[in-house]
C-alpha cells in the first residue's frame, strides 16, 4: 500500500512523500533527515511517568493537570514541532492560567517572521519563487543542513512556470556566508559567493552602490544588482544573518525596502523547525506578538524569553511541548528546570524528559497524526497520518485544558 505523506522534519514541509507500508517499509522522496523520522518512528519513544515512576497515560495527564492548576507562575514552552491545532490548545492553556508562553523562535528566526507578518518587509511564497524568481540569495542560511530539499524543491534547481530553462540559464545564485560550506560549494559559474567580515558592512555596500558611491564589496554587489535588475529576486535569511545583524534588524529591513525601489526583491526566512512559523502566526493572531508573551501582563518583553525566565527563577512550573531545552539551551539555564515542576509532552525520550517530573508521551506529527502546519513562507500545509495513534498532542492538551 502506498501512502501519500507530508514530512514534518523542517519548515519545508515536503508534501510529496510516498510511504510504502506493506512488506518492506520504504520512504520515497524524503531527504535523509525526513526519511529517518518515518523509518525510526518507533525508536526511543517516551513512556508516561510521574516522578520517574512509570504510570498510565491518564495518570500522567491527571497529575500534569493538577500541577498546572496549582501553579502560581506557569511557563509554556516549545510547540514548534506540533500542529497548529495543538498550538492553539497550548495557547489556550497559557491564556487560562495567565502563563508565559515562548518558543525557540525567540532565539531563532522569530524577528524575521514577525517582520513578514507585520508587513514591514515584502515577502512571497515558495511557489512564487519557483515559478518566477531569477536571483536566489541565501544569506546566512545553510539549507543543505537546515532544510535539505529547499534548493531542489523551491529555489534554485526546479523549473517553474516562468523559469522553464532551468538553473543554468534561468536562475542566478548568491550565497552569503561567513565560511565556505556545503551550500556555497554549489556556487560555481554564473553565481556569486560572498564571505563578508560583517553583515552590516555588506548592507552598507549595497546601499552605497545603489547611491552610486564606492563601497567595500563593490565588485560583488554591483554584479548582484545588475542581475537583480533582470528579474525578481528573493533573499532567504537564516540564523547566520539573524545573529550577523547584531540586533540591528532595521538596517536590513531598510535595505530590503531600498532594493525594492530598484527591482522586486522578496524576503523569506529559511531553516527552522517544522511549525515554528505556525506558532508565531497563532500567537500573533491572538495577542499581536509572535513570542515571549505573558498572558498575566498582556504584553511581550525580552525578559519573557523562556531562558531568561528560567535564570531569573520566575516560573514555578513549566509545560514543555515537543522541545528539548536541556539539549538546546546552555546548561546554566536548563539546570533551573530541575528546581521547578517540569511537565514534558514529547513523542520521544529526550534529555528533558529524563529530568521531568511528569512525562506524557505523544504521537509524531506527520507520521502518527495529521493536522496542519505552516511552511516557512506562511502557506498552510496538511499532514497525514501513516500509522494510527490517537493519543496525539491535541488529545493530551484537550484533556489538560478540561481539567484546569
Amino acid at each position, binding site marked *: 500500500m502506498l501512502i501519500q505523506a507530508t514530512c514534518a522534519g523542517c519548515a519545508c514541509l515536503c508534501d*510529496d*512523500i*510516498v510511504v510504502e507500508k506493506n512488506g518492506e517499509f*520504504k*520512504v*520515497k*522522496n*524524503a*531527504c*535523509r*533527515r*525526513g*526519511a*529517518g523520522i518515518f*523509518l525510526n518512528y518507533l525508536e526511543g519513544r517516551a513512556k508516561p511517568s510521574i516522578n520517574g515512576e512509570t504510570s498510565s497515560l491518564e495518570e500522567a495527564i491527571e497529575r500534569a493537570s493538577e500541577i498546572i492548576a496549582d501553579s502560581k507562575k506557569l511557563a509554556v514552552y516549545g510547540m514548534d514541532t506540533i500542529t497548529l491545532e495543538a498550538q492553539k490548545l497550548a495557547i489556550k492553556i497559557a491564556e487560562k492560567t495567565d502563563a508565559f508562553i515562548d518558543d525557540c523562535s525567540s532565539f531563532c528566526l522569530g524577528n524575521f517572521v514577525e517582520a513578514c507578518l507585520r508587513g514591514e518587509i515584502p515577502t512571497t511564497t515558495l511557489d512564487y519563487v*519557483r515559478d518566477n524568481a531569477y536571483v536566489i540569495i541565501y544569506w546566512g542560511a545553510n539549507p*543543505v543542513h537546515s532544510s*535539505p*530539499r529547499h*534548493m*531542489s*524543491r*523551491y529555489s534554485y*534547481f*526546479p*523549473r*517553474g512556470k516562468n523559469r522553464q530553462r*532551468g*538553473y543554468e540559464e534561468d536562475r542566478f545564485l548568491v550565497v552569503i556566508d561567513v565560511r565556505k560550506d*556545503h*551550500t556555497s*560549494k*554549489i556556487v*560555481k559559474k554564473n553565481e556569486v559567493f560572498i564571505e563578508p567580515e560583517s553583515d552590516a558592512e555588506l548592507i552598507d555596500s549595497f546601499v552605497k552602490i545603489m547611491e552610486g558611491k564606492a563601497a567595500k564589496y563593490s565588485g560583488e554587489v554591483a554584479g548582484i544588482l545588475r542581475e537583480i535588475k533582470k528579474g525578481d529576486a528573493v533573499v532567504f535569511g537564516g540564523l547566520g544573518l539573524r545573529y550577523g545583524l547584531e540586533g540591528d534588524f532595521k538596517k536590513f529591513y531598510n535595505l530590503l525596502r531600498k532594493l525594492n525601489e530598484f527591482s522586486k526583491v522578496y524576503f523569506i526566512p529559511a531553516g527552522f523547525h517544522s511549525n515554528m512559523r505556525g506558532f508565531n502566526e497563532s500567537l500573533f493572531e491572538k495577542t499581536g506578538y509572535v513570542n515571549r508573551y505573558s498572558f498575566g501582563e498582556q504584553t511581550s518583553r525580552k525578559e519573557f524569553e523562556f531562558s531568561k525566565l528560567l535564570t531569573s527563577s520566575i516560573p514555578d512550573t513549566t509545560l514543555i511541548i515537543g522541545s528539548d531545552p536541556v539539549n538546546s539551551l546552555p546548561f546554566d539555564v536548563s539546570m533551573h528546570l530541575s528546581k521547578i515542576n517540569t511537565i514534558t509532552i514529547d513523542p520521544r525520550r529526550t534529555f528533558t524528559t529524563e529530568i521531568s517530573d511528569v512525562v506524557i508521551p505523544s504521537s509524531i506529527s506527520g507520521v502518527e497524526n495529521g493536522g496542519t502546519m505552516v511552511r516557512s513562507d506562511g502557506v498552510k500545509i496538511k499532514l497525514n497520518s501513516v500509522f494510527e495513534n490517537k493519543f496525539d498532542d491535541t488529545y493530551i492538551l484537550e484533556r489538560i485544558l478540561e481539567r484546569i
Partner: protein
Amino acid sequence: MPTPMEIFKLLPKTNCKICGEQTCMSFAFKVITRERKLEDCKPLFDEEKYKKQLEELINLLEPLEKATETGLIVEEDLCTGCANCVVVCPVHASEDPYGMGSGKGPTIENPILLIENGVVKVINMLLCRRYGKERILCVACRENCPTDAIRFLEE
C-alpha cells in the same frame, strides 16, 4: 580508480588469449572499461600460484564493482537525500517536467535516480546520457551534489 597498468602487473602476463583478448594488457584495459570481467581470465582463477595476485586484483577492482554501468558511483554515507541530482538531471527534466523537473518526486515509472529511504538510488541507468553508443559526458548530477556523494568512474 586502478590504472590498466596496475591491473596488468597482477595478471599472469602469458598472453595465452583464453580470455578472448590478444594480450594481457588489452584485457587489463577492458576490465576497466567493463567490457571484460576478471573471471574471463581463467588461468588466474584455476592456477594456485596466482592466488595472491588474484586477491590483490579483487581488492583493486572493488570500487569498480560498486559503479553502475554509466560509471556513476554514489557514496550513500555522504548522501543527504537533498535531491539536487534528481532535479537537475536533464533527462528527468525533459521526461518528467512537472514531477522531478519541478522539484518534486517522480511521476514517471523508471527514473534514472530517485530518493529512497533518504539516499539516492540509481535505478535506471539506461536513460542516463552517459550510457550507450551516443553517450555524452553529462556531469549535471555530480556537479550539483553539495557533499560530493556522486563520482564518475573515469574521473
